[in-house]
């Protein structure tokens, strides 16, 4: 009976392939999750448990003391609020402007062949090369250490990213839908808002998540352009590494807190995220 035998061979092969696949995925998951676990667990460890050998995998007496210290003594809460303000505003501005710019580039070939690439090329500049002029400009324009200043800086920093993600997205949307809308009596502006943008929603969501995370984790600009008032969450972490030693518990408590908005955002848009990213990747 050759048939069943062949089935069994291919069944075995399938099984082996599946085991291999799960091993690879499992290893990757461990690689990603173990550091996260360590951060979360350290944030509730008493300081005596930080660096013991063998390591403490779960503290006998969990404590929330590092959270109160990080959020209040180290002004972590203020940093969190500042970060939320700056990141949300920059995300909205960058996504809206990026979507409109990308549409213009994709549909009207604005600026000829090279403008789209020129926009992207802004990302090639090392931040350190432009930080000094920006710092001086911000000082003279009274934007230094303000939310508004930081929002402006981050909007322009992330625009190339959102423009390019949306550019790739719009280019794969069929033109005939907007043409139908134009013939149907819509203006270009209406066709953009009522037809093109709703269809590009997955791309907008993906771009917005990227921009938010980029701004949320940005350290260098925040460090130079803010001090006591508009400082963001990443800059707070400096305080935990002093010459007297490291405040592991406080650092981990603040790190855990800072994960929350990204996770919520990711869950809100994850339905769109995969489609938005893959389409961009295929055409980009």
């Amino acid at each position: 009976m050759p048939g069943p035998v062949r089935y069994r061979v291919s069944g075995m092969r399938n099984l082996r392939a599946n085991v291999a696949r799960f091993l690879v995925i499992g290893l990757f998951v461990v690689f990603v999750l173990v550091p996260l676990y360590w951060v979360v667990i350290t944030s509730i460890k008493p300081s005596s448990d930080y660096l013991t050998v063998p390591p403490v995998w779960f503290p006998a007496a969990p404590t929330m003391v590092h959270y109160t210290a990080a959020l209040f003594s180290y002004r972590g809460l203020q940093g969190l609020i500042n970060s939320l303000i700056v990141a949300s505003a920059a995300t909205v501005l960058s996504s809206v402007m990026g979507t409109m710019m990308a549409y213009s580039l994709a549909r009207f070939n604005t600026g000829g062949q090279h403008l789209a690439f020129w926009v992207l090329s802004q990302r090639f500049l090392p931040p350190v090369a432009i930080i000094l002029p920006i710092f001086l400009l911000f000082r003279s324009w009274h934007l230094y250490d303000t939310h508004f200043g930081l929002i402006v800086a981050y909007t322009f920093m992330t625009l190339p990213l959102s423009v390019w993600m949306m550019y790739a997205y719009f280019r794969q949307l069929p033109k005939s839908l907007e043409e139908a809308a134009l013939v149907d009596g819509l203006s270009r502006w209406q066709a953009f808002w009522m037809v093109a943008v709703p269809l590009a929603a997955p791309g907008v969501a993906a771009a917005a998540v990227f921009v938010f995370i980029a701004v949320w984790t940005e350290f260098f600009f925040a460090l130079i352009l803010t001090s006591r008032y508009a400082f963001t969450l990443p800059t707070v972490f400096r305080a935990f590494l002093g010459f007297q030693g490291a405040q592991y518990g406080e650092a981990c408590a603040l790190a855990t807190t800072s994960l929350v908005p990204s996770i919520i955002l990711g869950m809100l848009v994850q339905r769109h995220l995969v489609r938005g990213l893959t389409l961009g990747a295929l055409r980009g």
Partner: protein
Amino acid sequence: MANVKISALHKRFGGVHAVRGIDLDIPDGEFTVLVGPSGCGKSTLLRTIAGLEDIDEGDIEIGGQVVNQMRPRDRDVAMVFQDYALYPHMTVAGNISLSLRARRMAKPEIEERVKRAAEMLGIGPLLGRYPRQLFGGQRQRVAIGRAIVRNPRVFLFDEPLSNLDAQLRDEMRSEIKRLHQEIATTMIYVTHDQIEAMTLADRIVLLRDGVIEQQGAPLDLFEQPASLFVAGFLGSPKMNFLTGRLERGPEGSAIRLGDSGPVLTLPRGRSPAAAEDARVILGLRPEHVGRAQASGPAEGMARIEAEIELIQPTGSRSYATFRLGGQPLVAELQAHDVSRPGERVAVDINLRRAALFNPETGRAL
């Protein structure tokens, strides 16, 4: 309702001259079909009328008004696209009503109009569905509904049936024709399918390489093609083209097929404008070539003997391929004809319906 007048229209895409000086006058209420092989400029011409392409030279008038610079939305034309172009994020009702909503029409009137359009097309029960939940034919109906709900001055169709399977295509074709009879608005329809062109059109405009090859009523183009190209494009199976030489005698003109093939005497009075011994192409439609009747050949018919090479039955009739002076000739036989390949039979050729062409210019003689 409006007429459409196009004068000396040119459109270039970079180095490609897609439309080369087209003059076309479409009267109000006429069903005009733009037909031609792919790349002939028919879709481009349609898109310039819609305002989706700018024009380089010439004028487009709709209802006596030059619309060259007018935006698509102000031209009051409706267009049905080849891929339907339904908005995937809107329901059928949303798709059909978008143009009315964009115009800020009152809600009750929108509902009334959508309902009427949906009833006309038999898509009433689908109004709450999304395009992805519809079949091809239903999508096409929605696309047409989106056009008729506005009562536009002109309808434009860009190969609307080419994505449908054969059976649905026949069905939708007759529906589009019925629609035109009901609303009697000017319609301009682009297709590469000569059957669609023949069945739908009041007037066919046959395009080739960006110019009009011939225009007129379908039967005029079919029976009096102005060129080899028109003759070959319309009709299925294709017209037979046989090359020969012109002979003149006391009886009138005749064509000798090939170098030593049979001589076919043209009907009296038919005297092509070509020199003695000039090369000509004789065009014969398969339906004008058939098995000889028992009585002798009628006036204007030529009778020859030839061997059947191939028989292709289609059900309603059969097509037999002969060889005449070294050239293939397809003839239409009755469906129940019992001839077999290899048989020699007598064939009557109706030369009164034959067309003659100049092989150098391709024009009719």
